[in-house]
């Protein structure tokens, strides 16, 4: 969070620079089954973010030392393509990507029925093609749809949503400018079917009341997005690739 007070992020009428209201998401498009080589896949366009996800498995876990006797290992790679940001990103090791991969894997280990696949591995490959604030959430959403597309049983689909704070106002779904110059960001991975939270990070400055407001926005947005995810899966199995 930059938190630079001198950048104006809300219009005088309380709307946001891009015209959205404070509890309005950027437009979302989702497709399932976009990667023929994969066992399951999804494509998510969320505002200017563009993410694809492939799922492979369950497959035998290699090497054997990573195997778990009573459950599957969830192996996530969140990766930003070199051309996904304004300044090119050098391919390879990256601390931020490693951290997001870790907590994303832990989120799905909590919702995938891993106990059905002892000693095996499920690979979730999240590729960020275009990054404009909110890619970790778009990745969570894409991975849920890709897992469903792969037919892997889950207790529910995790939906990636975020709220934040700009000019002392809690708003839903920060865009790039709001992320750069805002005061807080709260990305969450919510299972709307159970109300559980499987993923949470937060940074910035947020009072307890603001946190409550941000969580309310997130839960409401997650429920809406869950419908879009289901529609994408229905479209995949009923009506072909579109």
């Amino acid at each position, binding site marked *: *969070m930059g*938190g630079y007070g001198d950048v104006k992020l809300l219009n005088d009428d309380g709307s946001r620079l891009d015209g959205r209201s404070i509890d309005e998401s950027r437009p979302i498009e989702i497709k399932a089954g976009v990667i023929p080589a994969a066992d399951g896949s999804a494509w998510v366009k969320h505002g200017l973010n563009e993410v694809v996800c492939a799922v492979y498995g369950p497959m035998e876990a290699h090497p*054997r*030392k*990573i*195997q*778990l*006797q*009573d459950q599957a290992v969830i192996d996530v790679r969140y990766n930003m393509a070199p051309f996904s940001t304004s300044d090119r990103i050098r391919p390879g*090791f990256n*601390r*931020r990507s*490693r*951290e997001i*991969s*870790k*907590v994303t894997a*832990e989120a799905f*280990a*909590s*919702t995938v029925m891993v106990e059905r696949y002892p*000693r095996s591995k499920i690979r979730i490959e999240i590729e960020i093609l275009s990054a404009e604030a909110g890619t970790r959430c778009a990745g969570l959403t894409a991975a849920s749809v890709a897992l469903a597309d792969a037919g892997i049983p889950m207790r529910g689909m995790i939906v990636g949503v975020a709220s934040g704070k700009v000019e002392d106002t809690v708003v839903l779904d920060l865009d790039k400018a709001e992320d750069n110059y805002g005061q807080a960001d*709260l990305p969450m991975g919510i*299972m709307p079917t*159970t*109300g*559980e*939270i*499987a*993923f*949470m*990070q*937060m*940074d*910035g*400055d*947020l*009072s*307890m009341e603001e*946190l409550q407001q941000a*969580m309310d926005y997130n*839960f409401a947005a997650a429920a809406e997005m869950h419908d879009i995810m289901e529609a994408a899966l229905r479209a995949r199995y009923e009506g072909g690739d579109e």
Partner: protein
Amino acid sequence: MASQVVPQLLRQHLANLAADDERISGRGQWQGREIELEVDCLYNADGSAKVVWGDTIVYVGVKFELREPYSDRPTSGSLMCGAELRPVAHRKYEPGPPSPESIELGRVVDRGIRESGCIDMDALCIVPGESAWMVIIDIHVISDCGNIFDAAGLAAIAALRNATVPAARYDVGEDYKLAVALTPIICTFTRVGGRYVYDADEEEELGGAERLSITLGDNGNMHSMQKGLKGTFTAAELSEILDVCATRCGELRELVDSKVE
């Protein structure tokens, strides 16, 4: 193949204890372990602290380097916080490049400090666009017997508040104390035996589930949160934790205050 037998038995044992509102260590649900905090304890660091948190031991050293500011913030210094979970600290750690665990530790502590605004980055600038101080916080875990996040976070802010800017070493004036206006404190809660407890120890972590780490600032606002490990939680559980968190953070902030001038 990683053996799951011990953790399964342990998990059952922890669940039985939790049902009786007990913990394996005899502590209460929200009770932490004994803490020793020492500052100014590393000869070559510009700021330092050692935390002995139960059987967990963490050193933090702060160093300063002069760097050219980033081109998009020419009048600001910078902050870097990294952690090493080296094989010294536990049988389970292996040598090699930074593990996801060590990266997460460093980044969670980093966010809590950075987002609290406790350091005025603009005050670290010497010549705009030319030179500014980079504050480097190195977390070195020596013994991991549980809850390294809180031990590292405590040592980090204590070491920062202990730090002296080595201006003389770099020929840019006289040394002076780093101004640290605030004292962000991190508290970690772990699901053990089905319920949350504060300050899980080694066995509770081994048999436990997800971890929630929260950094609170002096004004009681949150500066960072992080959910780690397998498991989920509800909004109601988070609320309960946040209440406890405020109390624990206050106590730890007093401990830091008592050790640095």
